[in-house]
């Protein structure tokens, strides 16, 4: 019990440091004193005289963004854990269910095809697109398989079919009616963009992430049981159908919410669970919190890099996650090669 408390405190401390980094470093230079003063003003009721613009930047822009980055990183990572465990496939990741493809179609319908005439935001369109795509993939998988996830290949193939369909629809809409400016706006969103998030988004993403982690942690034992297949899990007394349904829905919901708010940030759901497994092993009681923490820190770092790599220009965060994630993953792969039991 004590160990649990110590570990949790350490984890939260690491997260706090990462969030601090995200707040202090950004596309413009703000002195650490100013950052400290703003945080002190807001959190501790101090009365430092701070320029209201600096205050707004640190508190409303950067802090909200760092927290959203943490939530998205954590959410996408545990979705990846769920999918890799349920489907028993090392290459499974949240976007397998067609969610990001559906989200992109929803987003371009709103912003390029003009659906909603400017009254609906890209986020809402993306969310509905994601939900539609997931529903389609689920129906397809259900119809193709004999019910349940006995054959995970069915889900993967259904997901591929769904993703391809929605990606094609996205391309159709962009090439038919998009101008260069609209195509640019969509491109940025398709690769991930945290610049428009504010406190409202923070509450939503943090809530979803925390709830998702809680549900996952609750099912940690069941997820361990699935390692040997669903028949073995059933033999171990796990209510297979119910758990599969709940966890898949949770993964889909988390992914849909995250993707509609910040766009399709790749690599996190695929790589972070593997990296976490190398660090803490395969037991889900440790894997889930570790993945969540690593995902959170990774995405904050990626966001900071995307804003500071090229001065005066913000890169899409998806580019950074891939550029940074791939070599790191290669390193972990090589390092763990000798010591794996």
């Amino acid at each position, binding site marked *: 019990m004590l160990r649990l408390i110590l570990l949790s405190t350490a984890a939260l401390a690491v997260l706090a440091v990462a969030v601090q980094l995200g707040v202090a470093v950004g596309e413009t230079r703000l002195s650490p004193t100013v950052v400290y003063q703003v945080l002190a003003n807001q959190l501790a009721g101090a009365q430092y005289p701070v320029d209201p613009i600096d205050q*707004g930047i640190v508190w409303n822009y950067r802090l909200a963004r760092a927290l959203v980055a943490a939530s998205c990183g954590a959410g996408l990572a545990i979705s990846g854990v769920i999918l890799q465990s349920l489907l028993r496939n090392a290459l499974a990741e949240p976007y397998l269910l067609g969610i990001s493809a559906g989200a992109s179609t929803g987003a371009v319908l709103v912003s390029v095809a003009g659906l909603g005439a*400017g009254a609906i935001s890209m986020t809402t369109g993306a969310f509905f697109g994601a939900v539609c795509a997931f529903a389609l993939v689920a129906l397809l998988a259900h119809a193709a398989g004999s019910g349940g996830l006995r054959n995970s290949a069915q889900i993967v193939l259904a997901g591929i079919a769904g993703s391809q369909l929605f990606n094609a629809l996205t391309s159709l809409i962009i090439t038919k009616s998009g101008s*260069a*400016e609209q195509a640019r706006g969509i491109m940025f969103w398709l690769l991930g963009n945290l*610049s*428009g*998030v*504010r406190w409202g988004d923070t509450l939503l993403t943090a809530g979803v992430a925390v709830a998702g982690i809680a549900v996952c942690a609750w099912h940690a034992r069941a997820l361990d049981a699935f390692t040997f297949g669903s028949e073995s899990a059933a033999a171990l007394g796990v209510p297979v159908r119910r758990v599969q349904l709940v966890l898949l829905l949770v993964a889909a919901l988390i992914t849909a919410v995250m993707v509609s708010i910040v766009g399709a940030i790749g690599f996190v759901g695929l790589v972070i669970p593997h990296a976490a497994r190398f660090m803490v092993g395969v037991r889900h009681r440790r894997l889930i919190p570790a993945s969540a923490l690593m995902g959170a820190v990774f995405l904050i770092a990626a966001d900071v890099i995307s804003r500071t790599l090229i001065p*005066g*220009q913000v890169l899409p965060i998806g580019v950074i996650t891939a550029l940074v994630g791939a070599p790191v993953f290669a390193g972990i792969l090589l390092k763990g090669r000798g010591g794996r039991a």
Partner: protein
Amino acid sequence: MPVRRLAFSTLAALLAGTVLSFSASATEYPLQLHNCGHTLKFDKAPASVVTIGQAGTEMLYALGLGDKVAGTSLWFNAVQPRFKAVNDKVPRLADNDPSFESVIGKRPALVVSQFEWMVGKEGVVGTREQFHDLRIATYAMPSDCEGKNNLSGSDGTRTAAYDAHALYKSVQQLAQIFDVEARGKALVNELTQRQAKAVAELKSSKLQNVSAALWFSSADLAIDPYMAGQKGVAGYMLQTLGLRNIVTSAEEWPTVGWETIALANPSILIIARMDRRRFPADDYQKKLEFLKKDPVTQHMDAVKNNRIVIVDADALQGSIRMVDGMEQIAQAALRLQGAAR
């Protein structure tokens, strides 16, 4: 020194206008013109023309050549009201990019293309050679090829800043091709005089070297906005009017974070009004609402003191409407100054 350069270029433009008006005469055929890396030869005025790009279309209408236009394409917004009657009689091949066959199906003698990415080395409609093989001449508007490399960057990258002389060159060359040189001179004179007047009015006020930023639109309301960069058309307009653009990027419409804009704190904020409703930020009312409600932008000097200028988006293009835009900005800025006193 920007002020000296602007004075010089205005003077040069006026002089050019005056000198050329002395030499307005019928075109001598056969006519040979150098245009964007190709040599065009005309034995007589073209009997019919197809336009790809609204700037070229409206330029021909302004030269009184509406009856020679066999088809139009690539429209960004509604045709100018004074050309509506003429335009209604002209078939529209496409709102966006036309197909190669639809263009040649009209059997034009000339194709006027506004952008190199429409008709050029990697032209979406076709290459210039493809048209020349069919004995159809192509005219590429100089504003898109002079000082611009269209093989890099999503909108092409300007190697040199946009300059209105490219616009006047188009008018003169098209007038020459169609043997309406007198009308061409008159149009150039009118435009240069109006531009010079707008510049002079601002110069005599106290608004010289005041900092400004121009917000076109944003992919989502709170996301990084598209601002006018240094080298594009809008950047040229700001510079010629003597306003200092706080955006340092050389791109035509870079995305700049609100953090950067708020910290640069321009004295005047110019926002675009348009009929299009793709992004929520297209509606200038929503732009104003955002500026007043966002926790950072509401503290900007321009927003607090309501020094916000509204200009038509159509007037921010490299077409004859550009002068309308400069007049709008100049008049609105002067009104602001008048209100402040």
